[in-house]
């Protein structure tokens, strides 16, 4: 059976089809239709159908990633939404966490809540942190609120009551009443959307869910109908932010889980590719035109975060958006890409970004009206990009325009020659990306010094060597068709659903019976969701608890078995936690008390391996793929040197070569610096081994 992956991106809607019998990959692209995203999906499917009749009707699965939720939230196109909360707490959404976007200014505000204060209603009830009921739910106060909801023609309601993560009974009672009194309303409960402590984050996430729910329901209905008309008999699955796939019904119930739908594809693809090399740590690095995404995959596990935000006021500034804290793959979003603009800042120093020329007007060398120097302009001047073979020759790059932009805006004010200024841009953007990766890893732990860096995206392979040397990453893997390879992630995503619930109790005082009934309830909840998407029954349950030292707030996830919690003897669990802690931070404490912060349940089918077609082994050497040589800038030498230039499609398995070298293919260019050796594996991936640390230091700029 074929599998179709379909990802709606900002500019393009990408399709990838994997032929179940031959392993052949087909890639298709159409322009995204922001006003009616379904249109692009359908026209893309038609093009696939034209290229390969029967593609749609014959597909077993269509896996879909969409930016619908994030766009609707940013553009405020969601439903008229109300919040129902505990009396005395309706302003949590407004007060947020009392933080400004930037300590050193007061002019930038975070996004306003998704609806005015008048639609935030309070009811009489109160749960306590310890699970006791301080005040039973007063149904009259709910009835009163329903009257207001109807009067104001509210379409969707978020219910987020204090401590509802601990005990959802009051929220459920509210839902029951809403169902009786106003059955046409969409209702989202915080205890279902995000059963986690912290009233602002939980309410915000629930409100985002409610806000987009009617819209997502409509969109999915349109899509399902259109697919049925095209005789699609397979399973339509949605890619969730957590990197798993889920049924349409799940997406309808929890649309907030689609915020980063599709974004995790790169990390999934990197994991599958990296596993081909047997690496335990894989640094996925996807550099595009405006931003880059990186992700550190350890032991086959995608890192997860509970800190996702949408509609950030300031680039990637944490805390400047609307929290949508459902489980998500922990991606490092880095505001640098090929189109990032370089300028001289107030310090008289070079700075890359945060402004980007994007695809339009684009870098100066595109000759589409851009005049500001960008990373791509620098890469062109340094000889890395072939002006006549950009996008396979679709676009001719203008060296003179790049030269002018960098000369005028950077080289002259810095008093440098243009080439050196271009090198400054190239090296600094690598340094900036390395900074972002280091900070991210410092927060979450891990060791990039043992990782394989999987590079893709339009600009990834060009910057991977420089980035890896700065991070002391020893090895690169660059897949075939690296420019579009992130979409491969759609084909290897598992069907999965994650539930996290706050607990907050010292490990020693956790009641095994209580833990068991909670974990069982969570597993049952996940089971219901899974059955909608996957009836194979192959899904595996994994359970874990987040543990920290008492007082710390960031838990480490410690897997537990699927037997009774009581069998996880407290001492063993504490010991395992200390091991994980030591592994993560390099040290641990014997004298601190472990505390459980949250329980996690994940139901997941096995993630797919990439069944890439094996290329025929050939006796050929890399020389047969060599197009020639050209001068390109060598950082360590501070001058132009001759680079061998290879034609990627002609490189065959088993061939090896050394840097300095450039490898060209249609959508991307791989640059390999001095001292590195490259080899091609049986799938056509290029593996680059960088000089070891001591030597790398000397080779580094």
């Amino acid at each position, binding site marked *: 059976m074929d599998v179709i992956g379909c990802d709606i991106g900002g500019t393009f809607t990408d399709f990838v089809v994997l032929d179940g019998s031959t392993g052949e990959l087909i890639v298709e692209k159409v322009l995204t239709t922001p006003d009616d995203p379904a249109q692009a999906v359908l026209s893309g499917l038609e093009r696939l159908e034209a290229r390969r009749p029967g593609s749609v009707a014959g597909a077993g699965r269509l896996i879909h990633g969409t930016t619908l939720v994030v766009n609707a939230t940013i553009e405020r196109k969601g439903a008229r939404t109300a919040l129902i909360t505990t*009396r*005395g*707490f*309706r*302003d949590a959404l*407004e*007060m947020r*966490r*009392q*933080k*400004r976007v930037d*300590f*050193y*200014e*007061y002019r930038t*505000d975070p996004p306003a809540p998704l609806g*005015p*204060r008048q639609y935030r209603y309070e009811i009489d009830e109160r749960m*306590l*942190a310890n699970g006791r009921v*301080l005040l039973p739910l007063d149904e009259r106060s709910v009835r009163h609120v329903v009257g207001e909801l109807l009067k104001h023609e509210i379409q969707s309601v978020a219910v987020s009551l204090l401590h509802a993560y601990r005990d959802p009974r009051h929220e459920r009672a509210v839902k029951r009443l809403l169902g009786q009194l106003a059955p046409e309303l969409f209702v989202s409960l915080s205890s279902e959307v995000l059963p986690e*402590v*912290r*009233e*602002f984050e939980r309410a915000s996430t629930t409100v985002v869910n409610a806000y987009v729910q009617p819209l997502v329901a409509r969109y999915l209905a349109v899509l399902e109908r259109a697919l049925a008309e095209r005789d699609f008999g397979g399973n339509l699955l949605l890619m969730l932010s957590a990197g798993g796939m889920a049924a349409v019904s799940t997406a309808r119930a929890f649309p907030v889980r689609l915020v980063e739908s599709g974004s995790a594809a790169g990390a999934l693809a990197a994991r599958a590719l990296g596993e081909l090399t047997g690496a335990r740590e894989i640094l996925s690095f996807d550099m595009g035109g405006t931003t880059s995404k990186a992700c550190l995959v350890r032991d086959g596990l995608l890192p997860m975060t509970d800190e996702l935000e949408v509609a950030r006021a300031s680039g990637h500034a944490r*805390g400047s958006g609307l929290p949508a804290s459902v489980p998500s793959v922990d991606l490092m979003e880095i505001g640098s890409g090929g189109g990032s603009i370089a300028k001289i800042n*107030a*310090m008289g*120093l*070079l700075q890359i970004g945060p402004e980007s020329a994007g695809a339009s007007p684009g870098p100066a060398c595109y000759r589409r009206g851009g005049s500001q120097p960008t990373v791509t302009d620098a890469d062109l001047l340094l000889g890395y990009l072939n002006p006549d073979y950009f996008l396979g020759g679709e676009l001719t790059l203008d060296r003179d325009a790049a030269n002018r932009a960098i000369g005028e805006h950077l080289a002259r*004010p*810095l*008093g*440098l020659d243009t080439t*050196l200024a271009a*090198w*400054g841009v190239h090296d*600094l953007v690598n*340094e900036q990306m*390395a*900074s972002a990766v*280091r*900070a*991210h890893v*410092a*927060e*979450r*732990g891990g060791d990039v010094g043992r990782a394989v860096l999987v590079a893709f995206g339009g600009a990834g392979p060009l910057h991977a060597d420089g980035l890896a040397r*700065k991070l002391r990453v020893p090895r690169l893997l660059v897949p075939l068709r690296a420019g579009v390879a992130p979409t491969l992630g759609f084909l290897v995503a598992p069907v999965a659903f994650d539930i996290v619930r706050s607990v907050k109790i010292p490990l020693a005082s956790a009641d095994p019976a209580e833990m068991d009934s909670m974990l069982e309830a969570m597993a049952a909840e996940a089971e219901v969701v899974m059955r909608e998407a996957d009836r194979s029954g192959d899904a595996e349950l994994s359970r874990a608890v987040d543990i920290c*030292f*008492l*007082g*710390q*707030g960031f838990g480490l996830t410690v897997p537990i078995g699927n037997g009774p919690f009581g069998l996880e003897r407290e001492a063993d669990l504490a010991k395992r936690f200390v091991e994980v802690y030591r592994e993560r*931070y*390099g*040290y641990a404490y014997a004298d*601190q008390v472990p505390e459980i912060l949250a329980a996690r349940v994940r139901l997941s089918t096995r993630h797919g391996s990439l069944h890439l077609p094996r290329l025929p082994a050939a006796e050929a050497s890399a020389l047969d793929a060599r197009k020639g040589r050209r001068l390109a800038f060598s950082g360590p030498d501070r001058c132009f040197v001759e680079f061998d230039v290879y034609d990627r499609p002609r490189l065959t398995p088993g061939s090896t070569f050394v840097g300095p070298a450039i490898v060209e293919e249609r959508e991307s260019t791989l640059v390999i610096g001095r001292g590195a050796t490259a080899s091609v594996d049986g799938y056509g991936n290029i593996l680059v081994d960088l000089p070891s640390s001591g030597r790398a230091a000397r080779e*580094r*700029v």
Partner: protein
Amino acid sequence: MMIGPNDLKANDGTMPDPLTIDAVWERVRSIATEMGATLMRTSFSTSARLNGDYTCAVFDDRGRMLAQVVQAGAAHLGGMLTIVPAFFERYPRETLQPGDAFVTNDPWLGAGHTPDIYVLTPVFRHARLIGLAGSCIHHVDVGGRRSAADSCEVYEEGLIIPPLRLYRAGVPNEDVLSFIRANVRLPEIVVGDLRAQIASNHVGATRLVELLEDYQLDDLVAVGDDIIKRTAHALREAIRGLDPGTYRNEACIDRFGDASVDSAPIRIAISVEVTESKLIVDLTGSSPRADGPINVVLNATRAYLLHGIKLATNTPVPNNVGIMDVFELRVPAGSLFNATFPAPVYWRMQPALHLPETLLRALEPAIPDGSISGSSPHWFTVIHGAWPDGRRFASWPHWAGGMGARPDRDGRMACFPADIADLPCETLEHEASVIVERRELIPDSGGPGRYRGGCGQRIVIRPLPAELGGSSDPLLATVIGARIDEPSPGIRGGGPAARGGIYVNGQRLPASRAQQLLSAEDTLTLEMGGGGGYGPVLERDPAAVREDVVNGLVSAEAALRDYGVVIDPATLSLDVFETERARRGR
């Protein structure tokens, strides 16, 4: 003398080229960021983790601070700028060895009060000192009187740790650690946080060594010289955006004592001289040393004023010693803003948080796109107590009043000038044996104007009763409020905000602070004032007033009284005709 970018690249052979500086500078800042990330993840207290009340910095071997993590407690910067040279006086460079780490919380060396504990780690490469990594956390407890709201001398404000070796050549100094443990109420958390600081510094040290290797540098001095010069230059350029002249402002802020006894309001008199190359800030004429613990050491005064300068110039200039070249501070020794030992300083934030605003207010005529009106800053609330099982807690929920209105829009709620996150009520209820009954905005608390000040907030809190799992012992709540005697002023014709107040069982206390035992039946209510308005009220769009009424931020009565806008209280519709009439009469 003006320095243009071309002068900055002048290369006399000792200076690395500009590209190296670009990249090294990026790396140095990245190291500070990575230190901060490490500290956050490994710290034990909500103070560092949720409130972000910490900072990390990187120094060269001369002790000059080169870079600081972006996230920072406002006052910590002041200590970081001067602490290392002072530290070198006690521990000359040649006495340091690899694996050493030092600790101090001396208010006069650091950030001005005992909870701020600094840890400094000298960094070596090839047995040569190449720099230092430093961090500071506002610790949850340092012993002494609980909350020290009545202290008369710094001795009452907890343990004073002079610069001491916390690690010697990689071995922890158990003597010092035991001494600290024995003197604080929450030794696990305090020691846990100290370890987080060590871990953070360790990351900084490792990365500094890698940096020198990667860029083949012997030390950071040349790059430091250049960065410092550029920073001073950038700040000078930013100051040039202000019209030269001398600007003055005087502000009255809440007295520290009870209004019933004879205590004077606190006066901040500021003069800001803007010259071509410098800002000279003079606080002569401000209040003398206070009897209570609100005296501010010079380091902290400098830090809060620097925050004001950066807000006023609105130019991103990094924090490093370069800014000291452009900013001169004059404060008479022994006065409120230049406290001398052994003045009590524990709650120095209360007056200090008014410094950025007082400076902005003075400079307001010189700022081309206008400034912010008065804000109701952070209150400092600490809840001490113990759970029935004996576990003690000391929670700092960090609530704040409304922010002033701005030249182009209303003030926000609860976030100026400090930028310290609150503790969520749910987290507070897990941490401390309390029930938060309400946390809500107070209608009509924002000052009226063309743009309205942000509303203040009301907190109602009471002990969790023993029968519901709480403690049967009373809690001690310490509250250091603000804008209770003196409301947030408006500017450019905007009106002042509503005052705040502290209430125990509904009774308003006659002071802007409280140290209160709360028993089972007691209720503590904190009402924090709003921000001041900006511009004449009659210039506010009646539709905006109506929206505020609909959203419950302004009452229909206040709409008429403050704005001359007539809203039908039943239908909440705007009466255009009556509004015009009401406004004509003003």
